[in-house]
C-alpha cells in the first residue's frame, strides 16, 4: 500500500484492476513514454499508477520511414511503425531499469501471428515483476499482423486466448477504435480470458501536403491521437462498459484531470495518458493530483465511487 496523504479528507485513489494493485488509476500509454528512461529525469514516475511500455515485437523493428509525425487540429498523426529493439533486447537492456521503478510496469506486446503473440507471452512469463501484459492487437501503423486481429471478434479471441493460456500475468487486450462494433470485440476478448481491456488505440488518419500533393507521412496514413479523438474514445468506453464485466482502462485524448474523470465516470476503472505527455511530460502526475482534488471536492472516499457513475 502506498502512503496516504496527511489530510483525513483525501480520497483514496488506489485501485486494483485485473490483479494489479495500482497506487492510482493513471498510467502512461504505450508508445508515449518509450521504456521510461527519458521521462525519469523530468517527471516523478513513482507518482503514477503505472507505465505501459512501447510495444515490443519478437524481432527488432526499424519502424517506418520519416516523416512520422504531423500535427492536426487538436491532435496529431503518427506512423512510427512499432520501432522497437525486439523482445530479447527488451528483456536484457530495458527491463532492468523498468523493474527498478517504483511503479507498476505493463509490458505491451505485438506479433504477426497468433504463435508470435503466444511465444512472447510465454517468454515474458519468466520475467518477474511484470504487472500485466497489454496485448496490442490494434496498431494501425503496421501492414500485416496486429491491426487485423482487433478487427475481428474471432481473431481477437484467438490471440487473447493463446496469450492467456501461456502466462500467469494479467492480460489486458488493447482494442482498436477502427471497427464497426467495439462491444462485440470486447466481449470476444473477455470470453477468451482477458482480465481487462484498454481502449482506444489511434484512429486511422491522413494528412496531405497540398503544395507537393504528397502525403505528409512517410507511411501515407497514420494514427490519430490527442484531444481531437477524446469524444470518440469516451463513447466507446461507455458502450463497452455496458457490454462486459471486466475492468476497462480508458484512453484517447486525455490531457487534464477533468478528461480523466470523464472516462472514469463513463465506466473506465483507470486511464492512460498518451499524447499529452509529448506536450507536457508532467501531464500524468498533474492528472493524478487533479483527480485527487476532484475527489476531495466531491467528498468521495474512494476513487471506485466514480467509476461508471454516469447518470443517464
Amino acid at each position, binding site marked *: 500500500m502506498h502512503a496516504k496523504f496527511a489530510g483525513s479528507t483525501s480520497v483514496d485513489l488506489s485501485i486494483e484492476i485485473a490483479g494489479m494493485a495500482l497506487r492510482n488509476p493513471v498510467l502512461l500509454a504505450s*508508445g*508515449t*513514454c*518509450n521504456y521510461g528512461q*527519458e*521521462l525519469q*529525469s*523530468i517527471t516523478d514516475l513513482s507518482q503514477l499508477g503505472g507505465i505501459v511500455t*512501447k510495444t515490443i515485437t519478437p524481432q*527488432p*523493428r*526499424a*519502424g517506418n*520511414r*520519416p*516523416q*512520422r*509525425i*504531423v*500535427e*492536426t*487540429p*487538436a*491532435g*496529431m498523426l*503518427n506512423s*512510427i511503425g512499432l*520501432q*522497437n*529493439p*525486439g523482445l530479447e533486447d527488451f528483456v536484457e537492456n530495458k527491463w532492468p531499469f523498468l523493474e527498478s521503478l517504483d511503479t507498476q510496469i505493463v509490458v505491451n506486446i505485438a506479433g504477426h501471428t497468433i504463435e508470435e503473440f503466444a511465444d512472447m507471452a510465454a517468454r515474458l512469463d519468466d520475467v518477474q515483476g511484470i504487472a500485466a501484459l497489454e496485448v496490442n492487437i490494434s496498431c494501425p501503423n503496421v501492414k500485416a499482423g496486429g491491426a487485423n486481429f482487433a478487427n475481428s471478434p474471432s481473431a481477437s479471441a484467438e490471440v487473447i486466448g493463446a496469450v492467456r493460456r501461456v502466462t500467469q500475468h494479467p492480460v489486458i487486450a488493447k482494442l482498436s477504435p477502427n471497427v464497426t462494433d467495439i462491444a462485440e470485440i470486447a466481449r470476444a476478448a473477455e470470453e477468451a480470458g482477458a482480465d481487462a481491456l484498454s481502449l482506444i488505440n489511434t484512429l486511422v488518419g491522413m494528412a496531405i501536403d497540398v503544395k507537393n500533393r504528397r502525403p505528409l507521412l512517410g507511411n501515407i496514413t497514420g494514427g490519430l491521437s*490527442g*484531444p481531437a479523438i477524446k469524444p470518440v474514445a469516451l463513447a466507446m468506453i461507455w458502450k463497452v462498459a455496458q457490454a462486459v464485466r471486466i475492468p476497462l482502462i480508458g484512453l484517447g485524448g486525455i*490531457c487534464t484531470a477533468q478528461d480523466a474523470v470523464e472516462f472514469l465516470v463513463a465506466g473506465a476503472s483507470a486511464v492512460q495518458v498518451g*499524447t499529452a*505527455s*509529448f*506536450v*507536457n*511530460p*508532467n501531464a500524468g502526475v498533474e492528472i493524478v493530483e487533479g483527480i485527487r482534488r476532484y475527489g476531495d471536492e466531491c467528498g468521495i472516499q474512494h476513487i471506485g465511487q466514480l467509476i461508471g457513475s454516469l447518470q443517464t
Partner: protein
Amino acid sequence: MIDETVRILTNREVAEDFYLARLAAPHIAGEALPGQFVNLKVNAGVTPFLRMPLSVCDVNPDAGYIDVLYQEAGPKTQALCKQPIGEELSCLGPLGHPFTHPDKGTDCVLVGGGIGVPPMIFLGRRLMREGFDVALLIGARSAAKHLSDELLEGTALRIGRATDDGSLGHCGLVTDLLRQELESTGSKAVYTCGPHAMIEAVADVSREFDAACQVSLEEYMACGIGICVGCVVRVENADGKTEYGDYKRICVDGPVFDAREICWEH
C-alpha cells in the same frame, strides 16, 4: 533538461519573416550550449497542439535570458509572432547534444541557411570567444532574408553571404563560398545547419576537402525528449547494413551528428 516558465522580453521582426525573441529563462540560459534547442509551447490551448522546437541562438547567463530566432512558417511560428511582451510560456530545454569543439587552433567554417542560421550564431560566438578562427557563410533567398551585420556581431572573423537572386553577396549557392573558403584557408572543421539539401551539399564538399563536418538536423518532432520516436534519421552502420538501430532520434541522439554518420535519403 529543465521545464521552465519563460517570459517574453522582446519579440520583433529582424529580417523578412524572421523574428528574434528574447526569453527570460535563467535556468536554461545557464546550461544551454551551441547546437542545443528548446521546445516551446507557443500558446495555451490545443491548437497549435504540440510544442515548437527552436535552436538556441544565443544565451546570456548573467542577465538570465536566451535568444531564439524564428521564421514565420505556419500556425506555431505565427502564434509566437503574436505573443506580446511579458507573456509567459512553458519551455523545455536545453535539449539534445551540442556541437563539439575542434582541436585547438583548427580553423572553423560555419554554414547556415534559412532557419539553420540561429545555431551557427551561437556556435560562432562561442568559438570566437575561445580563440578560434571562424568564418560564417550564410545562404538565403534574397537580401531581405539576410540578418544584418549588427545581429551577427562577434560571430565570425569573416562573414560570407550568398543569395539565390544575387541581391546580396554571391549570386548562387552558399556551398560555392564554402568551396572557396576551404580552398583558401584549408579549414578542417565545418559546422552546418539549414535545409536538408544544403546540409547534404555541405557534407559532400567537406568530405571532398577532408574536413570534419558536424551537421545539425531537423525533423518534425512531437516530444523533443525521446519518448515518441518520431524524429528519426537513418544512420549508416559501420558495415552499411540497415536493420534496427539504424534510425536515430534527432532530438536526443542529435540534433548534432557527424555528417559521415548520416544516411542521406531522397
